[in-house]
């Protein structure tokens, strides 16, 4: 039987609780958002004692469903001031499922300036001192923890970014090679973990295979899963071979690739940082494409990047990082971008938030666009906690205010992803209206995804709404977004859940899961003080035409305010 692990850092009390019935069929983002909604005061200090950090594998974690290894972490965000869920691949979701742990709730705050490691194993849960890893980057601290606790443990960790409680701080999740290369990156959750005095969480699932989901028809579930996996191996080959870097060329062609702090939508150096160039570089240096970040992934879009000498440098070099730390900074060298990625992984910083912040710093003249060495130095300053480092580490919105720059691509305080909303207008609607802030994973309207023209304001409201609901469903299930947040996938999930429950669970029931989670999140945000004025893109997107196509973000605010107006169960319509 699954349980919820509650750890109070103030009293050091540890409880294993039965799962309330109302949480039985929630997982991932559904569970983190529901627990935060139930237990956290929306007006609390996000870095104070009253906030909670909730860690939950997806509902389908540990099952044969392909690509079901996502881990969600939720809290009130110190970056947005609203509810936050951030998810990552890696090994921890399955390990928690193996231990029968449906969620971990961290509450309270450790006394003084002491740091701790939480060790979770089948027979015990302990709060240990973190003396030998305090102050270290993720790579070294994870190395020491694996040496101490065994090479097969999964680890969640914060780097100096989280220890300094920075708005761009991440929680790293170890990948299948034990490297801290997957990150719950958005929204400053590393700062929340740091505020509670937890440096790392070690999960040891040896001798444990409990699971967290009872399946009525396991044979039928396996059959649906295997058929789905087989289909994806064929249809996702582009992602397997080129990774998400494959998006550089088409997004550049669409005029939506952020370039020099969102001043252009196409980059003259795009070919030097695109999917083909990355694939060639990986091959030439003994790196790897087709790398799976978590067990059970059949898409395998991740990669392992080697330097010029053929030595490991970083892993999981992805589109968002390549664009926001590449074209957005005027940098056309994959080696520089990989070095920046390595530092962000080690320091525990969100590459997207930092790409935005450094772009703002470059616009402010702190460094020059295209100066890769300067970008590296600025990240080192964030780690060191210098004056400029502390400003940049708080993210794009703070950097813009401190440095006097108004071209700040952020919504609800969170920096945007690598799709300029003037060229991908549907994604712009998602940025504006997602409870998560400027979050592309909440509903990314890539060209061709929903049958609407990405350059036109028409049709984007319904398209964003539908995609937000379907993306939320994937987040609840713990399924990777790349299985596809679209109608065919909702149909597959309906078939899987029918096997779980032993009775028909239709597509409308599946979509209602997504709607219910969004309702919970929107309600929390309203109670935290947000209103429709927070659902707006920065003004310059509506007034400054984006070269090369001269586009503006021109979806009317009145329509944007209707995105979530229809979030109610179908039966309420009569």
């Amino acid at each position, binding site marked *: 039987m699954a349980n919820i692990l509650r750890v109070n850092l103030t009293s050091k009390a540890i409880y294993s609780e039965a799962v309330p019935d109302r949480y039985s069929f929630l997982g991932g983002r559904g569970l983190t958002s529901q627990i935060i909604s139930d237990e956290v005061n929306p007006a609390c200090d996000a870095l104070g004692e009253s906030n909670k950090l909730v860690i939950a594998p997806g509902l389908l974690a540990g099952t044969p469903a392909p690509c079901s290894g996502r881990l969600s972490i939720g809290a009130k965000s110190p970056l947005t001031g609203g509810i936050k869920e951030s998810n990552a691949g890696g090994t921890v979701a399955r390990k928690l499922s193996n231990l029968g742990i449906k969620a971990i709730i961290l509450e309270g705050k450790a006394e003084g300036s002491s740091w701790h490691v939480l060790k979770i194993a089948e027979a015990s849960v302990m709060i240990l001192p973190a003396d030998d890893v305090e102050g270290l980057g993720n790579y070294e601290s994870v190395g020491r923890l694996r040496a101490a606790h065994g090479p097969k443990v999964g680890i969640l960790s914060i780097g100096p970014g989280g220890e300094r409680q920075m708005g761009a701080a991440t929680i790293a999740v170890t990948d299948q090679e034990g490297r801290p290369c997957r990150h719950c990156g958005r929204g400053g959750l590393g700062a929340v973990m740091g505020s509670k005095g937890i440096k790392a969480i070690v999960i040891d699932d040896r001798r444990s295979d409990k699971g967290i989901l009872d399946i009525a028809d396991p044979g039928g579930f396996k059959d649906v899963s295997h058929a789905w996996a087989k289909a994806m191996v064929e249809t996702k*080959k582009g992602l397997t071979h080129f990774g*998400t870097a*494959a998006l550089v060329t*088409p997004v550049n*062609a669409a005029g939506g690739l952020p370039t020099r702090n969102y001043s252009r939508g*196409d980059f003259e150096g795009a070919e030097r940082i695109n999917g083909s160039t990355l694939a060639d570089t990986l091959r030439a240096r003994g790196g790897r494409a087709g790398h799976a970040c978590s067990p059970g992934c059949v898409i395998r879009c991740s990669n392992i990047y080697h330097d010029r000498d053929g030595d490991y440098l970083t892993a999981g070099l992805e*589109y968002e990082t390549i664009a926001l730390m590449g074209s957005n900074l005027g940098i056309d060298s994959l080696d520089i971008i990989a070095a920046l990625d390595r530092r962000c992984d080690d320091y525990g910083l969100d590459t997207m938030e930092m790409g935005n912040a450094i772009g703002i710093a470059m616009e402010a003249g702190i460094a020059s666009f295209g100066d890769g060495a300067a970008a590296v130095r600025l990240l080192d300053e964030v780690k060191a906690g210098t004056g400029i480092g502390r400003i940049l580490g708080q993210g794009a919105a703070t950097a813009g205010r401190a440095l006097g720059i108004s071209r700040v691509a952020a919504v609800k305080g969170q920096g945007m992803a690598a799709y300029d909303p003037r060229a991908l207008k549907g994604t712009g609607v998602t940025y504006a209206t997602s409870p998560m802030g400027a979050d592309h994973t909440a509903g990314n309207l890539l060209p061709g995804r929903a049958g609407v023209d990405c350059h036109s304001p028409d049709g984007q409201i319904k398209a964003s709404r539908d995609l937000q609901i379907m993306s939320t469903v994937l987040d609840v299930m713990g399924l990777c977004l790349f299985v596809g947040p679209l109608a065919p996938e909702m149909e597959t999930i309906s078939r899987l859940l029918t096997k779980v429950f032993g009775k028909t669970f239709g597509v409308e029931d599946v979509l209602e899961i997504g709607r219910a989670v969004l309702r919970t999140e929107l309600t929390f945000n309203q109670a935290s003080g947000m209103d429709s004025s927070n659902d707006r893109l920065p003004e310059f997107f509506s007034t400054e035409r984006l070269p090369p196509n001269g586009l503006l973000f021109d979806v009317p605010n009145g329509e944007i305010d209707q995105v979530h107006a229809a979030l109610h169960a179908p039966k309420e319509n009569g």
Partner: protein
Amino acid sequence: MIRISLQFPWGLAGCGPKIPAGETELLLPEGTSVRFLLDSQGIPLKSVGLISANGSTTKTDYILKGRDKIQIYPPLEGG
């Protein structure tokens, strides 16, 4: 007649023909539109996410010119 390069950087695996990733050269009559090109290759519009001509997105009414590099993408994935 004009000669163009037709590229499928991601291949196509949707509702039309399965086309592996790759590139081919075609000889076409002058005045050929992208729409005609797709029809001639048996590619339904539904299986196309983005069309670019010489590195910039274009629509199906674009009239092809000699030495154009046309890239056809399925609905884009990833993020």
